[in-house]
């Protein structure tokens, strides 16, 4: 995290004991001002996190008393999780378990979620573009559309029979039998869900754009003197300089990926869960249903901690790769 978010080094690490009266007053005042956050953090983050962990070693339903010590079952839930076909089953020839649903979706969603905003940022940062401000605003604008509305818009455009996408494909000569069924089709559902969420790129686009604008122009000039073409300038100047922003967005997308479930939840209020045929039973949707629908509080907590650990592992792994491709200006050797 320190790598990711630089902290200005302020103050010297004194201990409370050898503080002067002034420092002590500053300490008291500082703590008082940040106390709403400290209380909120303890009550709404730290305590629930620990409670989730405790619940995962118990056998509780929502209506049970969570303080009942007789409900402890040790590692039973974790053993059940390791055997849960609805989580793990890879089933290459059939509907997969929820973790693989999530990963299959992520294999498309993450690259698109990084490369598309990067491409658009490059485009709207291009000095040749007339009306840059207009384009920047317009590419960002759909980001503020509530997702419940935007998924209905995209689901409409992607409707297999009447959506404009398939009507265009048909007009371009694609035979009707080969038209994708998009959100109704187990073979196309993941690209379709990526499109449903495509209006969410505004944030990443703007952060990358800001990163590109922070690149000192003398670096480009130097590259030009060296005879670098536009691709080389991107690869050797722009990308390294914005790589921390890319990394920041990558971490955010990975965390968001494993928690993804609101889109299938809101979209399928009138359909079978995981429609079509379980292909959208994302890990977090399975978790949500386990707790909120089937009220299995302990198994839900187990799924939640397993998710937390998975995210932690993936994040740590990404941080390990960061030293090979993320470039921090302060660490020039």
């Amino acid at each position, binding site marked *: 995290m320190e790598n990711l978010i630089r902290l200005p080094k302020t103050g010297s690490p004194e201990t409370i004991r050898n503080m002067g009266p002034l420092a002590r007053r500053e300490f008291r005042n500082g703590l008082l001002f940040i106390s709403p956050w400290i209380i909120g953090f303890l009550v709404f983050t730290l305590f629930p996190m620990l409670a989730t962990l405790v619940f995962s070693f118990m056998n509780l339903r929502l*209506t049970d008393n969570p303080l009942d010590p007789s409900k402890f079952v040790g590692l039973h839930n974790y053993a059940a999780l390791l055997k849960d076909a609805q989580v793990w089953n890879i089933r290459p020839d059939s509907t997969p378990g929820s973790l693989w649903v999530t990963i299959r979706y992520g294999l498309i969603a993450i690259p698109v979620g990084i490369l598309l905003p990067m491409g658009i940022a490059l485009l709207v940062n291009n000095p040749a573009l007339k009306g840059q401000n207009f384009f920047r605003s317009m590419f960002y604008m759909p980001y503020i559309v509530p997702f419940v509305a935007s998924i209905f818009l995209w689901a409409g455009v992607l409707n297999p029979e009447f959506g404009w996408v398939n009507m265009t494909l048909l007009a371009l000569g694609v035979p009707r039998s080969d038209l994708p069924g998009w959100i*109704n089709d*187990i073979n196309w559902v993941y690209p379709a869900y990526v499109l449903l969420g495509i209006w969410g790129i505004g944030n990443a686009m703007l952060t990358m754009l800001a990163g590109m604008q922070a690149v000192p122009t003398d670096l480009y000039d130097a590259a030009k003197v060296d005879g670098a073409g536009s691709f080389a300038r991107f690869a050797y100047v722009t990308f390294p300089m914005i790589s921390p922003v890319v990394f920041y967005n990558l971490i955010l997308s990975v965390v968001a990926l494993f928690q993804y479930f609101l889109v299938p939840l809101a979209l399928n209020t009138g359909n079978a869960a995981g429609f079509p045929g379980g292909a959208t039973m994302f890990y977090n949707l399975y978790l949500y*249903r386990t707790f*909120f629908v089937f009220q*299995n509080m302990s198994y839900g907590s187990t799924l939640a901690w397993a998710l937390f650990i998975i995210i932690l592992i993936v994040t740590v792994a990404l941080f390990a790769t960061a030293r090979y491709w993320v470039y921090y200006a302060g660490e020039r050797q």
Partner: protein
Amino acid sequence: MKRLTIVLSLLIGLSMLLGACAPATATPAPATAATQAPAAAATDTPAVAAATNTPAGPTAAPATPTTTPFPVASCQAGKTCVRWYVGLGTGTNEVQIPVEQEVVNDFNTSQDKIQLILEIVPNASAIDTLSTEIASGNGPDIIGPVGWAGSNAFHGQWLDLKPYISKVDTSIYNPALVKWYETSEGDVGLPFAVYPSALFYNKAIFDSAGYNYPPAKYGDKYKMPDGTMVDWSWDTLAKVAQALTTDKNGKNATEAGFDKNNIVNYGFTWGFENHVNYVGSFWQSGSLVAADSKTAQIPDAWKAAWQWTYNGVWGDQPFIPNNNYEQSLNNGGNPFDGNHVAMIDNPVWYTCCMTHVTTDGSDKSPADWDIGAMPTYNGKVGGRIDADTFRIWKGTKNPQAAFDAMYYLETTGVQKLIIGSAAEPAPYGAFPARTADQAAWLAAKKVAFPAVQNWDTLVAGLNYPDSPSAESYMPNFSEAWARGKTFYSLIITSPIDLAKEEQTFQTDLQAIFNKAQ
């Protein structure tokens, strides 16, 4: 510093006040609700099934939208508020909601102590929403119309109505129907609606192909266009349905050169019966759980029914719409509205509104449908009967008021909800449970749908119950039930390896059953 603390606490206090101002239902639930775990294991296997399924895809706008089809009401001060939760069974259709609201208004004006509040939830998420409400101690008071699947999903949550029922006259019902609701949880309801099944057919599509209508009497044979008489079996139905499935060029599915990517009319659909248990039960009654109540199984007849369905959707001569068609061209999965499907095997739900949207979209055409006998599998009719009623959540704070309102719905309310009149057809396509109402119901239906001849065929459907019910108990019921619904969506969504997917389904089902132990 002090000032900030004061401002902060004032604001927090203010927001709490605003939240707490929300009326009675926002207050904590009684302790009984919080300590009652929904029992995972129900032991009763009801003999007769009930509807959890409603016409999911509703219909055109009512000609004069005087009441909002999407009501939201708040509780008035000084009244006992009773919430009526609709969604587990029939009742969420666009045509139905205004009439339900009207009955609620009638009740609210008929007395001044109780305020009935209508709560409409989409059928597909009704179990989910109710789970959340009950778990948080904010369950509704009256729940219904609800069938056996709904009751199995919430086993242990129903109020025993014995003390209240004992004060009213139950002799108006067939005693067998009253006995149905005397379960291990107590007397959980009074009979309200019964749903025999039948084969609904679109006369115009039969006419345009010159085919005879399906037999009106159970046991009769079907006369093919060439004059041969054949058994009215699922195989025969498939052959007829293929001849009625037409592409854009007027070729039907039995002809060479048929273009299966441009189909205009389909021969058959399961319509709102979008669950593998329903499809299976129409062939032969069975269950996904073995007699030991914990092993997942798939009856052979059900596999045959699913294969038949799969072939009908994805075969070379398809006659059942796939999901794309069902949801888009067929008016959101409503084959009656869409008017492009020749036959639908269904309980009577849609006798509320057997119409279709006219081409200019402004109004509805009168029914061009009639009712035929359900086909046979191995010489026998499978069939399916649903029964819906109202139930009361055991966490209710006002059981007497809830019962009074419920009793109103089941007696006075029946007139508008089930029987209806020529001017205002009944919104619930159900057969009334009260013996005295049945003649009036038939008379009203004959006026509302003059094109329908075979009402007797519908009543004859009462002879073909599914036993065990398609909605009978499975361990971890709501999760297992949801899995079955998901599996059905897979069958009509994409070409798959059905045998492998059945295997996956059975494995998952077993895992779901195991969780209950």
